[in-house]
């Protein structure tokens, strides 16, 4: 009986483990190995060779860390905007009455139902020089403003795509909130704003943390939006990797960039997690 117990959990999680091994661990390992292979312009990657040249190349060439820096600040900005819009949105949503709540939740989730590529083209129609937004600007007497094929377009479209990933975790932690806690704060003389800041916000911090981790991680590795709305000049790391693989055909360099992106993402997300979690772990358990 006890013997059964020891292998049963492994057997039951075997399909998932196998899937992860084949789909994630093996490609990751192959990519890592590839990033250390030498590259010849004529013959491509040299199997079995070992070199640090691609990493040295990434670190020494300002072209690369410009793109890394852009990816970092765009992802950071998208995360901040998502917190600023998503957290209040989730709060308002949780205060809505029966039919409206589901309707608005559906509206917020709607972007997830549409392909990223379709949405990106939608934004390019809206943001283009002859698009709706510039039409409105023209009516007011501003512009035309260049909104497409630059960082602004990427940030706007990424916020739109990522918002549900912020709203849902915050909404979930708001559901766990005892509604009379807010009443208690009011009864003690706090204003609505103080109640939000001192009582509600600290309790939904875990939701904001998980939301920001998801948003940052997805934004930093996003490909379709920067690819379609950033144009040829404004690149992010994921589009850079694509170029190295498919245009330059320098697979080892592409693999090395991918590895650096993964490592940087991990460091930033773990650091952020530790910083925010430290603030509420002791109190909320």
């Amino acid at each position, binding site marked *: 009986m006890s013997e059964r117990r020891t292998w049963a959990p492994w057997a039951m999680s075997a399909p998932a483990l196998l899937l992860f091994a084949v789909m994630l661990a093996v490609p990751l390992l192959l990519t890592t190995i590839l990033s250390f292979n030498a590259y010849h312009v004529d013959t491509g990657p040299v199997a079995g060779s070992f070199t640090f040249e691609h990493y040295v190349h990434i670190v020494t060439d300002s072209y690369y860390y410009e793109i890394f820096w852009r990816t970092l600040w765009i992802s950071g900005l998208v995360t901040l905007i998502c917190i600023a819009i998503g957290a209040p949105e989730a709060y308002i949503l949780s205060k809505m009455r029966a039919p409206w709540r589901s309707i608005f939740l559906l509206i917020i989730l709607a972007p997830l139902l549409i392909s990223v590529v379709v949405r990106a083209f939608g934004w390019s129609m809206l943001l283009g020089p002859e698009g709706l937004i510039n039409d409105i600007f023209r009516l007011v007497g501003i512009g035309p403003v260049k909104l497409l094929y630059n960082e602004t377009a990427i940030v706007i479209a990424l916020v739109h795509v990522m918002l549900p990933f912020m709203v849902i975790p915050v909404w979930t932690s708001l559901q766990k909130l005892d509604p009379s806690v807010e*009443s*208690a704060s*009011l*009864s003690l003389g706090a204003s609505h704003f103080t109640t939000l800041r001192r*009582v509600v916000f600290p309790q939904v911090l875990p939701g904001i943390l998980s939301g920001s981790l998801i948003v940052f991680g997805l934004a930093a590795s996003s490909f379709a939006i920067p690819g379609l709305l950033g144009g040829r000049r404004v690149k992010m790391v994921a589009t850079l990797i694509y170029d190295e693989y498919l245009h330059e055909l320098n697979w080892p360099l592409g693999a090395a960039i991918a590895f650096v992106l993964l490592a940087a993402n991990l460091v930033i997300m773990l650091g952020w997690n530790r910083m925010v979690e430290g603030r509420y772990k002791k*109190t909320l358990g």
Partner: protein
Amino acid sequence: MSFLRLHNVSKQYGPNRVVSQFNLDVQKGEFVSLLGPSGCGKTTSLQMIAGFVDVTEGRIELDGKDITRAKANERGLGIVFQTYALFPHMTVRENVEFGLEMRKVAQPERSERASEALALVHLGPYADRYPRELSGGQRQRVALARALVIKPPVLLLDEPLSNLDAKLREEMQFELREIQRKVGTTTIMVTHDQSEAMSISDRVVVMEAGRITQVDTPHTVYEHPHNAFISTFVGKANLLQATVHAQGGQWLAHVGDVQMAVQDVPAAAASHGTRLLLGLRPEKIQLSASSAGRTQGTVRERFFLGNLWLYTVECPLGSITVTAANDGEAPHQVGSQVGIDWSDRNVRLIAGDGVAA
């Protein structure tokens, strides 16, 4: 001059009138309970006093000032919620100090008053703990300290003890009353537990279906319930269908072939053969040996309640409930014949389900 006055207060949600014509005058320092079954409007009434629910009609006055339209955070009332509603991310001390902080009480005084409030509820040593590290009873005390520390004119308690287990609830009842006496805060408590309301209140307000049906001291509510519902909701009662007629200057009631004298028959009901409802409390009936008593019956069921024996007796009055102290005498056996005795002083005439005048 009453301290807190509710004048014709009503609450309407769409077509539903949840509270209607709520009139109550509370004296300073008084402990009043709103008692009723769930859905009777007692919690809505409390929330209107607290300012969490808008008043549809009527007026609420506190110390002579009209607070009907004042916002919850301007009323300055102390509220203890059913779920305690402590701030989980703050320590016990921070919870208690929150209200003082909002009132901009400066630091040395703030922590002094918080310590006093915590000492009052015997939680001094727990000041630096977080709510999740406390038991239910301790959380309840923190909530009480947090509400009292701001020295509110009125303390509102929303089913404060309903989440505690039976033994703790009883202890907290007496402690709550003791603390209330000590600080002298006017208190209004909502409860559906009649024994809780009876044991600690100065006055009990019984509510049914959004209306007040009786406002009296606990003893009066128990001894002179205004209607059949109150007589069975507050304690147990045997309700007997009787016909009354006058005889020699007093009223006699007949239940089956048993005759008893009743007092205070209202003039409207006082014609011969009028059918009325009588109430007789189980503890006011005595069982004895079968030959004695005003009538005889058979013990159908017997339950042991520790301090009491509870019998169901089949007799000419119908199937009645009788309790007897577990005083060490041998109890009556199921199936045995018993004599049934009571004093007519304890027979209550119960008005119909009309609303209290």
